[in-house]
């Protein structure tokens, strides 16, 4: 009987020992091969971000760790559709710093008492970087896409994400809306174009800007509407695509805010401030994002051509007017078009 017991418990004991040994090995948040073995961080900050800024954060995080404020601070970043991430933080997803695609996703957190009301009251307006809406096509531009009207070519399939979950989707639809409605002065014309575009040319429903890129790279669709920074990074990865900035496009501004319930407010604020330093701005520019610092922007002017007409959210009345009118879950004009088209 004792033999039985021994032979039964031996494998269990072996597993327990292995498990303990494994537990002793260091884990961490870095997923870079061979990137283990740094000194254990005293603090870990969690950045909850929208889908596409990973190239930027991948540069920022090590640079921040090299600064005096960033010493001993490890940063974990989570990427996903802006709306979904924002709702997640409201529902309890851990976050110290948030970086969303559109301002309403931060406003949601303000309403939930997770972000201070004055998060964008200072000179920076809470926006450390941005981009413009861009059209990504297959290499060689076989369909000769140059402007918004070209998207309405019969049989052309356009890939853009779901505005109910994605911030990218909102920018993508605001750009043609602003162009066609002359900055919101003729809403009917704008909505008419959106209607034609979405109903006849949008067939897929990716949840985020990144998912939309993935769907496009996997062979679906002829044109992807996306951020210029996402287009740049996709090209840098060697994919057979190119991008065109239409003559009239939209200025994308991506907010960053500190979460007030963070246990590491000092470090979170330090990280946020780092984004606005010339060093930080340069890193964002190198990652393909348009910096807000005018000096850095001047240095990178050739990477970021100025469009003929750049509409901004202010032209349309600001997010507090645009978001409920166009993107409200049930009554937004664009949301209704989108839901009717894709179900």
């Amino acid at each position, binding site marked *: 009987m004792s033999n039985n017991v021994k032979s039964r418990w031996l494998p269990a004991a072996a597993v327990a020992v292995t498990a303990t040994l494994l537990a002793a090995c260091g884990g961490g948040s870095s997923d870079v*091969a061979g990137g283990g073995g740094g000194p254990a961080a005293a603090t870990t900050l969690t950045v909850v971000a929208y889908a596409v800024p990973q190239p930027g954060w991948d540069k920022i995080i090590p640079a921040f760790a090299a600064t005096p404020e960033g010493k001993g601070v490890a940063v974990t970043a989570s990427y996903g559709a802006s709306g979904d991430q924002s709702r*997640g933080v409201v529902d*309890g997803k851990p976050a110290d710093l948030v970086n969303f695609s559109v301002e309403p996703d931060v406003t949601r957190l303000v309403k939930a008492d997770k972000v201070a009301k004055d998060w964008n009251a200072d000179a920076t307006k809470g926006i450390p970087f941005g981009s413009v809406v861009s059209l990504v096509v297959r290499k060689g531009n076989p369909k000769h896409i140059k402007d918004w009207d070209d998207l309405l070519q019969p049989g052309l399939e356009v890939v853009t994400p779901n505005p109910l979950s994605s911030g990218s989707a909102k920018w993508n639809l605001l750009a043609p809306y602003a162009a066609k409605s002359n900055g919101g002065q003729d809403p009917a014309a704008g909505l008419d174009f959106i209607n034609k575009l979405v109903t006849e040319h949008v067939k897929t429903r990716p949840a985020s800007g990144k998912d939309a890129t993935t769907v496009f790279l996997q062979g679906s669709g002829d044109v992807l509407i996306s951020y210029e920074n996402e287009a740049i990074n996709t090209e840098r990865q060697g994919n057979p695509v190119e991008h065109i900035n239409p003559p009239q496009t939209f200025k994308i501004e991506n907010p960053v805010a500190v979460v007030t319930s963070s246990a590491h407010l000092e470090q979170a604020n330090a990280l946020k401030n780092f984004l606005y330093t010339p060093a930080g701005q340069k890193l964002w520019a190198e990652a393909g994002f348009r910096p807000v610092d005018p000096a850095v922007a001047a240095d990178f002017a050739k990477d970021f051509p100025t469009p003929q007409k750049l509409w901004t959210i202010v032209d349309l009345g600001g997010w507090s007017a645009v978001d409920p009118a166009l993107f409200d879950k049930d009554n937004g004009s664009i949301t209704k078009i989108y839901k009717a088209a894709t179900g």
Partner: protein
Amino acid sequence: MTVSPFFKYLFRFVALAYLLVLLIVPVGLILWRTFDPGDGSWYAGFENFFTSISTPAAVSALQLSLLIVAIVVPLNVLFGVPTALVLARNKFRGKSALQAVIDLPFAVSPVVVGVSLILLWGSAGALGFFENDLGIKVIYAFPGLVLASIFVTVPFVIREVEPVLHELGTDQEEAAATLGSQWWQTFWRITLPSIRWGLTYGIVLTIARTLGEYGAVIMVSSNLPGQSQTLTLLVSGRYDSGNEYGAYAVSTLLMGVAVIVLIAQVILDAGRARAAK
């Protein structure tokens, strides 16, 4: 009935071809992509593999998955064995209802499992006061992962132990009782050893299912690398961020676990057959 040689070979060929195309080739392809470094040196392929599964995020994922297993398995054994006992040995009102409830997890989609947990334990859920007032976070925290894993593994131990108890009958236990054995002595010395094959089988299935759960955990986890990513979440996380090789590497690791499970099943089957004789 004896099948003509033509049909015999035809059936064999078609069946094996189906299995080859559906099972073997895709799995083999992943192994190839993981271990083939492209420059001819097979050694480098293994090196790439090991580097990819030993990044800090991967080690954390492994630790998290094993931790969940370490909690789920004992709980399932602790509650599952008595449940199997009561199902096999007793008649009581509502027994068929209990049987049906035990089978429920088989009928529930993993996404529905995640949704149900969110709707129950989430901050806007039926038991939202746990999080809002008592500060006990379930969703987007470790308990959520555990609850999701237990939900999907509830039936395994029970369903493997119950038939064994059924077939065993109560002779030995009755004999022990008449000889004055206490209930815990009878349990430890007679019942437990006699169900050990079924129990081990159930535990192996539980471990495999827990390590492999994806649909439910992706909904209740905050999916932060190094903190709340299980091995399966690591696979999809890597794939999403373009690290395809990394996804293949972790998949190979999980396939290795699956193969070990299959081997364990074969061994346990043999053990059960021997014990039955």
